[in-house]
């Protein structure tokens, strides 16, 4: 018979600190329906978040080397916060003995049967990689994307289910997708090494065809994000006399992504998630919405748009109001070629909302979940920092995820000319260049009048792209 764990023991099962922190608020009886336990298992339906309750069960029988978890939430963390929350509830003595719920009974029966026949199960081809590491791998219904990620990275993080619970056709599709991505990543890496072998000065690098072919191959390999990245690198060739440095930087980061994506099991989980997102493994929206939200008053601080291979990408930058340092979030929206992206949030307003973060090494990309009430006008903008501090913040983010292409900042600074039509933004701590592509320099100078202004923009290797000016009583979209 299993001994009831203490809360500390439960938290020690968490895969990371954030999961542990997320689990604590879930350990309240009101969040659960039909929670019950017996000698070897606990189960319950988590009803506080989604329309569909999550069926959670934990197998506590310790004869197979530690607890096993089942939850039909989309999280890829094992155990997920729901399982941890249920365990915490149990640890607090708030789960009463009861008859097993049908789903829990079915799962526990199947599990028991499977443990007996584990040797056979291990021979399943697609599970071999994943299940080999630990015979007592917990069962977890992952999303299709998640499992593709695992197969791709050699996945000891979120192991494949032991079989039977996922339809074999789907598993085959995941496996094939992972194989395609792996092939694409290997080809990208070979291509990069070939370019370095012959040298960046070789003429074919200046030929857009060279890059387009690679991008097309990456699209075929379902690494869409990398394909777009490759196309962006192509535009840097020959842009200015020192373009070799820019291109080598980008190629080295592509190399790091290609190598990292093939070995995600060797990376810390957050970094692995970031690599997955950067290589084009799309994360299902529902997975993100199932994460713990950050609720705050979010200022809609700026908006930028770029065209990426027939698709318009709109970035909306949200900044937490009030507290310093400011927490930034990027909400993406896409419009198919020719269609404008509908502006969901107006710059110069603020909304009280739940933000759900995409997985990754840094919290940046997010989805807006529940919005409480109507947007409020906000023309003051987010709290500004000095230029030095803004770069320091961006630096921490880039150290965690060097492939991040844009990082937001809001500074109080003066635009100043440095000759040749180029401008910088300067304050007492230093100056940063304004990107050559900024077409609204005159507006910025006019509003500033040579005095400090609050300016929000995107910081990238090309410099700062100003997006919004926060005047005395008006947010000016550039």
């Amino acid at each position, binding site marked *: 018979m299993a001994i009831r764990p203490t809360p500390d023991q439960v938290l020690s099962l968490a895969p990371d600190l954030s999961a542990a922190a997320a689990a604590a608020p879930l350990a309240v009886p009101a969040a659960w329906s039909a929670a019950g336990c017996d000698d070897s298992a606990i189960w319950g339906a988590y009803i506080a978040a989604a329309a569909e309750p999550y069926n959670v069960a934990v197998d506590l029988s310790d004869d197979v080397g530690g607890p096993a978890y089942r939850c039909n939430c989309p999280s890829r963390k094992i155990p997920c916060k729901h399982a941890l929350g249920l365990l915490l509830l149990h640890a607090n003595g708030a789960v009463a003995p009861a008859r097993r719920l049908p789903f829990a009974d079915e799962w526990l029966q199947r599990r028991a049967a499977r443990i007996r026949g584990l040797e056979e199960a291990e021979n399943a081809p697609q599970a071999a990689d994943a299940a080999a590491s630990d015979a007592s791998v917990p069962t977890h219904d992952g999303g299709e994307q998640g499992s593709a990620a695992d197969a791709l990275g050699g996945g000891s993080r979120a192991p494949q289910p032991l079989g039977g619970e996922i339809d074999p056709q789907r598993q085959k599709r995941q496996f094939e997708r992972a194989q395609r991505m792996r092939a694409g990543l290997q080809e990208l*890496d070979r291509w990069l090494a070939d370019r370095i072998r012959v*040298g960046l*000065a070789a003429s074919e690098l200046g030929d857009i065809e060279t890059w387009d072919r690679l991008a097309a191959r990456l699209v075929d390999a379902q690494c869409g994000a990398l394909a777009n990245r490759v196309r962006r690198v192509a535009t840097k060739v020959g842009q200015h006399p020192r373009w070799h440095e820019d291109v080598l930087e980008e190629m080295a980061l592509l190399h790091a992504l290609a190598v990292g994506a093939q070995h995600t099991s060797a990376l810390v989980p957050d970094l692995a998630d970031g690599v997955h997102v950067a290589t084009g493994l799309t994360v299902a929206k529902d997975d993100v919405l199932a994460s713990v939200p950050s609720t705050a008053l979010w200022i809609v601080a700026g908006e930028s748009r770029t065209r990426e291979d027939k698709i318009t990408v709109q970035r909306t930058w949200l900044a937490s109001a009030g507290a310093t340092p400011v927490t930034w979030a990027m909400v993406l929206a896409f419009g198919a070629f020719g269609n404008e992206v509908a502006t969901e949030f107006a710059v110069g307003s603020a909304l009280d909302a739940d933000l759900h973060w995409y997985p990754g090494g840094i919290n940046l990309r997010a989805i807006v979940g529940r919005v409480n009430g109507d947007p409020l006008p906000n023309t003051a903008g987010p709290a500004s920092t000095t230029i030095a501090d803004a770069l320091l913040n961006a630096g921490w983010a880039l150290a965690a995820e060097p492939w991040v292409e844009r990082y937001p900042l809001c500074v109080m600074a003066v635009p*100043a000319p440095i000759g040749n039509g180029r401008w910088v933004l300067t304050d007492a701590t230093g*100056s940063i260049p304004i990107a050559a592509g900024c077409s609204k320099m005159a*507006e910025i100078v*006019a509003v500033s009048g040579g005095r400090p202004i609050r300016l929000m923009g995107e910081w990238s290797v090309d410099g700062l792209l100003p997006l919004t000016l926060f*005047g005395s009583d008006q947010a000016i979209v550039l």
Partner: protein
Amino acid sequence: MSDAAEGVARSAAEEDLARSAAEDLARSAAEEWVGLVTVAVLGTDRRPLPVARAGWGARSSSPTSMADPAVELLDRAAGVATARRAGRRPAPAVPMTDPAPDDPRPPCPPAAANQLARMLGGQHDVLLPEWFARCRLAGFQLPHHLLPTLLLRGRRNPAFDIAVRAVAGGRAAWLAEAMPELRIKAAAAAATSVAGTDAFLPPRPPPDSGAVVAAIVGAFHDRSATWAAAAQIRLSVAALDPTWLPPLILELNRAPFHAVTERTRVDLLGVAQLRDEMIRQMPPANSPHAVP
């Protein structure tokens, strides 16, 4: 030396140490980077890859291609590139130019600025002269962020340029000095100043605005308010005595629908509503037409 003073001295020394360590790191990163770029430009087939400087070596990313200098270069470049990106510091502060002269006038209200922006974008720009006349009377500054657009537009239209400069204040001149592309030939503006002055004044109200409103409404009933006639009617809406705007808006909303007049109706409704809003934003101290 007191303990506190000693503490300060020690932390200052530590700070110096940290700064010089950071400088050393930055220097070695720069040296390592130059070496990698040089080899990358020429190609590892032609140039041997120098040994990594202390701290910049990379664990090989792939055990099978251990011997490939191209892969080693990419591995090492990824590390240095990350350090370069994350470690980017601001350039030294730039001396600032003299700021624009102070303007004692109150700033333009955001709603009025938005109306101007809409008109500059081509929407109901028949009302532009009145906007400037009202802005001048109300004693507002021009919206700063629209100054560049206004100055550029004035380059093609001297009368407009004069109207802008009448309310622009010192900031427009300052801006033209700061942004060479906004510098407008003063001679061109001066040459037309006499001839063009009254070209950019709002139209005078007709003697009987009520009759004009009735005529407009009639034009919708007999379907003569086609798109071809819209320009003419638009001018009369821009000239109406402001007290007649609300009745006109009411009548336009009630006008019978017909395919040939619908476009005109929507357009006129837009003009009338924008004008009505504008008058509420910048109420006349006295009639705008009293301006010399």
